[in-house]
């Protein structure tokens, strides 16, 4: 045999043997109880990994023969590990894997608490998580509404879909101040520097994987805005095969919507996804009957909104990962009064945001860096008819951008994390009058630089954990101006409050954290934690003077941040596999809390004298409370939850130097903080139907910080409310999903401080089709 023939035969043999040796494994991952498919489950066989599609299918090629370990993990399920023998005669394995639903809690992996992956059970602090199953089976129409099911969380979205804005606050930090809670999407902040607000309508529910909530100050890692806690909305990446969804919805008040999304994860590591939704409603009349009699210009508050998002990225291994995404959002919401303008009074957000996140691993170092840019064009059309016709627009351009970094490494007992963040926020706004000559301009910029360091120590086989962290933030407020052009009676009263060319203001804040946890076994842990958080003033308080409810407010460029020192203790106990209980108590001392206080002056705003108010750091606040929750899965298809929170928030020190004599808020209770809240939920996944029933009781809340009588509410407190929501889902014909939602089943009327009434019972039917 010639040498050439030998080589050829050898090559052929190798080729043949490689063909023989290549195995393929495919199968389906199902829930143990209901036998429903589990989408997005990670399936690892040897070194190869993939994810299940929406029907739970997976396939992996190129497997070597021999004994392999198959590991399947999915959020909300126990990890499944099994052996797989791939013999020489077998080329293909078809598998059916049944996952058991896990008690939600201690074993879940979260990222928010430490800016790195950790199990909840390893973090000495109170972390809450909302799983995709809960998201799917709650009646909530937006992500913030879901958070109201958690103990100690207050959501001011009384009007559901029809609310122009929403505020989520935690643990007694009321006042409808979103700036006191940091909101992240995939770890990137979405609070705007202008007002600290978050456009919750911009955060689509299309592809959310889970929501993590860190209670108590998170400033030691995240800096400003994390005074009350941190909410992180984490989005899902597409699975291995191409997936596509199309959905239609229709509900009360002619509310209709369409949504679509598609995506794919390629074997090369590249992934992409795209999604969009369009939603509109004819709305309803929010004003009271008395208002309707007095005002002939009242109309329904309709809305329409649309959003589009595209994402792409690459992840082949843990060594390097990049995620890019761009989203665009546009809405117009009418506020229920129309005189001459085509849509009457409206608010309009045109927003786009771009994010680029990089992460990787080099040797023993994990690193990440993220860039973001958020641009929001806000426009408000205001018109009314009184003595004559008044029409003006508010045009506000808000920009927020930044760079966030983190570096972490395990060294012996230490898990070290450090990094720096740079953030910049700016506002450039004008009130442009058309029925008079006035134009009011205000602008300002704020820059933050923060450095942080955290050490997480593990002792005695992780039975004892200690976290020590420290962050320093330096802020600069500059380029501020408040100028009025061609003032008339509309704005002349503000003329004396103009300013420009101010020298820059800067301040610093130190945020320490020290937490300790003892976890003798996986079913029990107890922790104690101290942390300090702060909240910088927003640009609106620093550089804008203008009308507020009850009077006129003056800009104050030299405001200091407010801060809070928080001490809490908590326990988690799982006496059986089917029962999980948590309890926390907390005490917080707030300093330099910001309030509007009357200066003693009054000003004629064109309809009589009104008090001049100024934002001031004037008070000390004490907040204490208790939270408890119980989670049980008595049956494989049924999950029950209940939670209770008790909170007291009182003003204990009031600096009256700037206040009108006789006004003293000492001893008063913070507004918008319910003393008692109770939530309960029952979620069932049956073979023929999925159902979620949730109930929420919110106790009375004071209307204002003076705890005084309010003309519109006719009391000093909002009444207690009890709402019941129901969600039903049914999958059929393999590709279809039908949902029926009822919010506020008992049709309770909820009123807010301006006398407007909520929509009452709201029903929605949605039908979706997926590949």
């Amino acid at each position, binding site marked *: 045999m010639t040498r050439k023939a030998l080589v050829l035969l050898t090559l052929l043999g190798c080729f043949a043997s490689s063909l023989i040796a290549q195995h393929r494994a495919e199968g389906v991952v199902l829930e143990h109880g209901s036998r429903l498919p589990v989408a997005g489950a990670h399936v690892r066989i040897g070194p190869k990994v993939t994810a299940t599609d929406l029907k739970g299918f997976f396939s992996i090629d190129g497997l070597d023969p021999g004994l392999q370990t198959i590991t399947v993990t999915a959020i909300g399920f126990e990890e499944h590990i099994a052996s797989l023998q791939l013999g020489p005669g077998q080329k293909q394995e078809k598998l059916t894997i049944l996952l058991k639903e896990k008690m939600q809690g201690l074993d879940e992996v979260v990222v928010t608490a430490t800016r790195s992956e950790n199990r909840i059970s390893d973090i000495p602090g109170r972390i809450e998580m909302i799983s995709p199953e809960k998201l799917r089976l709650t009646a909530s129409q937006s992500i913030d509404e879901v958070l109201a099911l958690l103990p100690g969380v207050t959501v001011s979205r009384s009007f559901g879909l029809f609310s122009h804005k929403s505020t989520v606050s935690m643990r007694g930090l009321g006042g409808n101040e979103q700036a006191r809670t940091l909101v992240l999407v995939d770890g990137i902040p979405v609070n705007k520097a202008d007002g600290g607000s978050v456009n919750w309508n911009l955060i689509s529910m299309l592809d959310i994987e889970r929501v993590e909530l860190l209670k108590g100050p998170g400033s030691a890692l995240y800096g400003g805005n994390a005074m009350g806690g941190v909410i992180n909305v984490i989005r899902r990446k597409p699975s291995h095969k191409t997936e596509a969804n199309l959905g239609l919805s229709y509900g009360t008040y002619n509310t209709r919507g369409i949504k679509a999304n598609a995506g794919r994860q390629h074997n090369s590591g590249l992934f992409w996804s795209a999604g969009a939704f369009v939603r509109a409603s004819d709305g309803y009349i929010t004003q009271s009957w*008395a*208002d309707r*009699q*007095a*005002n*002939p*210009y009242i109309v329904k508050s309709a809305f329409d909104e649309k959003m589009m998002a595209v994402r792409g990225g690459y992840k082949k291994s843990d060594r390097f990962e990049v995620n890019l995404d761009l989203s665009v959002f546009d809405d117009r919401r009418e506020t229920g009064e129309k*005189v*001459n303008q085509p849509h009457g009074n409206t608010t309009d957000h045109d927003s786009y945001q771009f994010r680029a996140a990089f992460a990787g691993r080099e040797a023993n170092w994990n690193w990440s860096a993220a860039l973001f840019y958020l641009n929001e064009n806000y426009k408000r059309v205001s018109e*009314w*008819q*009184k*003595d*004559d*016709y*008044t*029409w003006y627009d508010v045009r506000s351009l808000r920009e927020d951008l930044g760079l966030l970094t983190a570096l972490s490494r395990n060294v012996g007992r230490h898990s070290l994390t450090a990094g720096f963040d740079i953030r910049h926020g700016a506002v450039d706004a004008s009130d*442009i009058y*058309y*029925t*008079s*000559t006035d134009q009011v301009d205000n602008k300002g910029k704020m820059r933050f630089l923060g450095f942080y360091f955290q050490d997480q120590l593990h002792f005695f086989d992780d039975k004892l954990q200690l976290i020590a962290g420290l962050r320093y933030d330096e802020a600069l407020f500059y380029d501020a101006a408040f100028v009025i052009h061609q003032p*008339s*009676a509309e704005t002349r009263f503000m003329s004396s409050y103009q300013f420009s060319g101010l020298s820059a203001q800067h301040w610093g804040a130190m945020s320490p954290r020290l937490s300790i946890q003892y976890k003798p076994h996986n079913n029990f842990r107890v922790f104690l934690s101290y942390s300090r958080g702060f909240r910088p003033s927003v640009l609106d308080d620093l550089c804008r003077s203008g009308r507020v409810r009850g009077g006129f407010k003056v800009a104050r460029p030299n405001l200091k941040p407010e801060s809070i020192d928080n001490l809490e203790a908590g326990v988690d106990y799982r006496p059986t596999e089917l029962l999980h209980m948590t309890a926390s108590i907390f005490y917080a001392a707030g300093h330099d809390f910001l309030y509007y206080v009357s200066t003693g002056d009054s000003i*004629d705003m*064109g*309809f*009589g*004298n009104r008090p001049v108010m100024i934002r001031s750091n004037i008070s000390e606040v004490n907040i204490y409370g208790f939270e408890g929750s119980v989670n049980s899965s008595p049956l494989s298809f049924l999950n029950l939850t209940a939670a209770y929170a008790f909170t007291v928030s009182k003003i204990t020190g009031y600096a009256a130097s700037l206040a009108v004599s006789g006004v003293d808020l000492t001893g008063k209770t913070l507004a918008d903080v319910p003393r008692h809240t109770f939530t309960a939920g029952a979620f069932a996944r049956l073979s023929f139907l999925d159902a979620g029933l949730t109930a929420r009781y919110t106790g009375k809340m004071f209307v204002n910080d003076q705890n005084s*009588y309010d*003309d519109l509410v006719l009391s000093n407190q909002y009444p207690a409310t009890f709402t019941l929501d129901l969600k039903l889902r049914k999958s059929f014909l393999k590709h279809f999903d039908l949902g029926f939602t009822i919010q506020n089943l008992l049709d309770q009327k909820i009123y807010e401080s301006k006398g407007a009434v909520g929509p009452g019972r709201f029903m929605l039917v949605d039908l979706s089709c997926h590949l």
Partner: protein
Amino acid sequence: MCFAKSHTNTHRMQRIFFWLLLLIILGCSKAEQPSLKPIIIMKTGSYTVNGSKVPPGGRLSFGITASGGGATLTNLLIHRKLGDQVITELDKGIYINEGGLSIDFTAVKGMAEEEDWTFMVMNANRDTAMAQVQVLLGEGSAWGSLLHFESVVLGMQHNGSLPNYLDLHNGMSYTQEQVQGHEAEIDLVAFVYTTGGIISPTLCCPAYSGSSSVTGHYPAIAGWVVRNSTLYDYYTSDNQLISAETFDAAVNDSLLVTAFNPGNVSGLCKYAFAGRVIPFRTEEGKYGLIKVKHADELSDGAIELEIKIQQ
């Protein structure tokens, strides 16, 4: 030869290309749109014209026509300049899409040697147009007499046993049944409501709308075809700038005119408590003063007014 021909062809093509390019550029460039600014013209006829001499207390009458120049007219502004002092006589938001604006404006000549009147309109593009009239001081005095109604009692909104509707020009008051057919003569109604935590006896007029409007307390007014606007100088009232004694001493219309500050007026006058003196101007342009003699703070109560108005 071929080369020469080719060169000629090339040159021709270049010329063709050049003209084509020029055509494209000219064709693509936007034709200059004429700038559409608003227009304002003072009416002629029996109006006060530039350079008129008018004695103090004399009537000034201006006629204004304006168009928006393709955009909606949104503002009418009238200034009276007396030396360095500028008084805003009218700063009115309007919304006129079609047809333009045509109004008459009346005022009373003051003591200044020269009054420079400026009339400005603005459209929704915030473009403006202006006209000016100068009025000089004439000889003599033209202050006129006044009508005095010593006691006019009206019921608040839930008092059906007293008249609720008042014609300020003649002091006539009407009940709900009697006012039918007289809606166009009504200048004043009164009601009580709580505002800013204070129970407020309030004077209003049929044309006042928006929140806290008159129709919330007198729903029947919503169906009136003609709804008069009376402007009250609430600033003078709130700050009690005119005493009851000063009111009592007025024997001609000079105080009625000079007390009225057009920069702080509204169709709604809150806090009309007993003792307050409230300057006003009716839709017809008559100036007057109201002294509140008594005011209940109950919606079924009554209010007693003493009124002096230009004759």
